[in-house]
């Protein structure tokens, strides 16, 4: 092999290694993260109380709440899921399922049957439609899944009232030899808060054979309507 041939071979080899390395980075993930996880309320941190409001933020939220009756106007009566970021902080005891693919991570939450899609190795689009769970992109840093969520609809109810400036970064990783999933949630919203809100949530691996169940919250509202009309809601 002459010098020119050696250079070409080296170039090809380097290119192949580079491509292989890139491919490895793009698909790197921790397969132990896949599966069903149950919230560990005892180990998880609680959302700070009080929240670190700015003076203007506290007034805005207080004004929003002031005109509402906590019973009659409770969004829960209408089966309203809080969406992000409160959905990531829920300690209600309902499991979530992590489904890992090469280009998307799906977080399927039993509570309110919420589904989050984490689009991997891509950027947020220039224009996003505000949604209750926002738009999430992510990437793997070794065995840690880093998720960035924006475009969340501004909502003043739930654990963390927020404006359209809210931004959530989560770092998921599996610890305790695969027994525990931890999600470090960092919420920033300069329109309401003086500092980031950081909460660590812990989940325990569900036993083999565990199942996710449906959570049809609004069924009760429909049953109530049917019965109020003198009907039996389900087929005989």
């Amino acid at each position, binding site marked *: 092999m002459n010098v020119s041939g050696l250079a070409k071979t080296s170039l090809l080899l380097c290119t192949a290694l580079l491509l292989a390395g890139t491919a490895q980075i793009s698909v790197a993930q921790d397969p132990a993260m896949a599966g069903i996880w149950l919230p560990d309320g005892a180990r998880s941190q609680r959302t700070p109380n009080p929240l670190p409001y700015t003076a203007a933020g506290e007034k805005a939220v207080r004004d929003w709440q002031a005109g509402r009756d*906590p*019973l009659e106007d*409770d969004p*829960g*009566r209408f*089966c309203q899921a809080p969406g992000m970021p409160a959905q990531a902080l829920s300690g209600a*005891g*309902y499991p979530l399922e992590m489904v890992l693919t090469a280009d998307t991570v799906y977080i399927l939450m*039993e509570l309110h049957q919420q589904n989050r899609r984490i689009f991997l190795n891509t950027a947020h689009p220039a224009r996003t439609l505000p949604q209750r769970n926002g738009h999430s992109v992510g990437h793997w840093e070794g065995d840690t899944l880093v998720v960035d969520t924006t475009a969340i609809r501004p909502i003043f109810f739930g654990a963390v009232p927020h404006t359209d400036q809210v931004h959530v970064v989560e770092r998921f990783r599996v610890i305790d030899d695969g027994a525990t999933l931890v999600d470090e949630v960092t919420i920033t919203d300069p329109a309401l808060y003086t500092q980031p809100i950081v909460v660590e949530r812990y989940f325990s691996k569900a036993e083999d054979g565990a199942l996710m*169940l*449906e*959570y*049809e*919250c609004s*069924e*009760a*509202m429909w*049953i*109530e309507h049917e*019965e*109020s009309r*003198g009907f039996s809601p389900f087929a005989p």
Partner: protein
Amino acid sequence: MRGWHVLQRLFYALVLTGCWQAATAHHSPVAFDTDVTDFTLEGEIISVDVRNPHSAMTLRVTNDDGSTTDWDIEFSSINLLLRRGWDFDRLVVGDQVKATGNPSALGKPEMYMWSIILPDGTEYDR
């Protein structure tokens, strides 16, 4: 037909006043006095519906004067109760049970139930 219209109006009046199928209601947590956790009722199961987001039961309780009151009992979701080992077939209409939990914060015949003792002594909680 006039009788029918009267019944129809009574029916809608019941609906509008919330008296119809009170057990189907889904209350905000602030509807209950969570500082009181040992509020206890003993009575007969009139209806039970285990579901999401909260389950509902009507318990007929005999008062001191011999009259009865139908209490609207709310409790946890079917999903969580299933994982906690509840056997829903054992919540039988007609059975006498003891329910413990939070009373209404508004003085209504309502409670949020955290535990129940069945006729054979079996206790389910949460």
